[in-house]
């Protein structure tokens, strides 16, 4: 289901419910408001802000964790398969632009300027945040809208994830082919 923004009054009611539920330790009510927030990005954001306010109030604030550190933690503890580094060529600006054009995702106002990007073979920045994409845009002296940059960023993230999946598959193949690997030995014995 698409995110359906609630009216201001509906959001305010949900906020009041959430705060009341937290103050009353009512987990069922908290869960219900979170379900509503799953379909409302603004309410979702406000709930995050409210949680920070509560954490400060009760002296349990968390220091912001560096994204790189989190990624490392996730890879080490939950996605060990990522640790196999297989070299696959990086995605370029031109590839992302081609994807946007092919999928008709380029805003009408940017169609002409986007064609100029098709042949640019500069790799994407490592961290695909909007400021990084903006910085890349300045480097390339691009005259494109903020909407284009956002769409470009989103497509770049998705393409990177797709490339990541290819890396994972390659890593699995590499692991399973190593001498001494139990599974490959079993497969070899079976043959």
């Amino acid at each position: 289901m698409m995110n359906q923004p609630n009216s201001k009054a509906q959001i305010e009611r949900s906020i009041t419910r959430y705060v009341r539920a937290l103050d009353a330790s009512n987990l069922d009510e908290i869960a219900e408001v979170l379900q509503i927030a799953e379909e409302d990005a603004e309410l979702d954001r406000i709930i995050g802000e409210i949680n920070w306010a509560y954490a400060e109030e009760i002296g349990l604030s968390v220091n912001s964790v560096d994204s790189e550190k989190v990624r490392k933690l996730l890879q080490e503890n939950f996605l060990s398969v990522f640790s196999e580094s297989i070299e696959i060529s990086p995605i370029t600006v031109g590839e992302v632009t081609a994807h946007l054009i092919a999928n008709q995702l380029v805003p009408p106002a940017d169609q002409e300027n986007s064609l100029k990007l098709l042949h640019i073979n500069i790799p994407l920045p490592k961290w695909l945040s909007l400021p990084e994409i903006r910085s890349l845009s300045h480097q390339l002296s691009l005259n494109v809208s903020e909407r284009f940059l956002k769409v470009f960023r989103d497509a770049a993230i998705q393409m990177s994830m797709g490339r990541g999946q290819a890396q994972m598959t390659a890593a699995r193949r590499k692991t399973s082919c190593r001498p001494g690997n139990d599974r490959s030995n079993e497969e070899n014995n079976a043959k």
Partner: protein
Amino acid sequence: MSVTMEPSTTRNTSLPISQKEVVSLAIEAHYSNLQTGIRVLVARSGLVDGETKIVETANEILQNTIEVALQAADRFDPTRSSYSWLMGIAVNKVREMRRDAKYETKRVQVFEDKDVDNDGPNERRELNDNEDSTAEERIDAVLYRTSNRSALEDQQQPLNEMLALVNESDRKILTLAIVDGLSGVDLAATLGIREGAAYVRLARAKEHLRKKYFATFGRKDS
């Protein structure tokens, strides 16, 4: 939230996307917020006492939440807000732990409604569902209609009567929100506090008003 998942482009792409990677990206984006939210949940639920135990339990729940989220990645709908989805998983874990006898014995109501000033025993009673919804309707009729500038004049008297029920601090924030129409960042800036704190204070002021309203007028339709 510092990073949001953009649903429209996710839906339109024909590229192969691993759901597990989408979920891990969401976890990465919301990690600090998740840690914070889960600590608040643990503290408010009264599962354990003391900062050290709260942090330890919250870390355990965070780890479990990430595991469950990655296992359930195929069921995640990327068009929905990922932070609330992840927090929902954490709430389920807290509920499960509260049901566990080991934690049940430690369960205490550690956080009383400490911000209610000068409330007597009558004011502190819990409202039942019918009263609750009727109170909301009556109060909302004034509070939310007065958000409409043109209707403000008509509602001024009932609004003033209601605002007279609460203390100065609550009256100030309710006036800023209802009469001046401030919310979110603007309300926070006027009060000199953070956005989340402004939402909490406003919600509590509304709750105090609701309780005071019932204590004063009772149920008109009973």
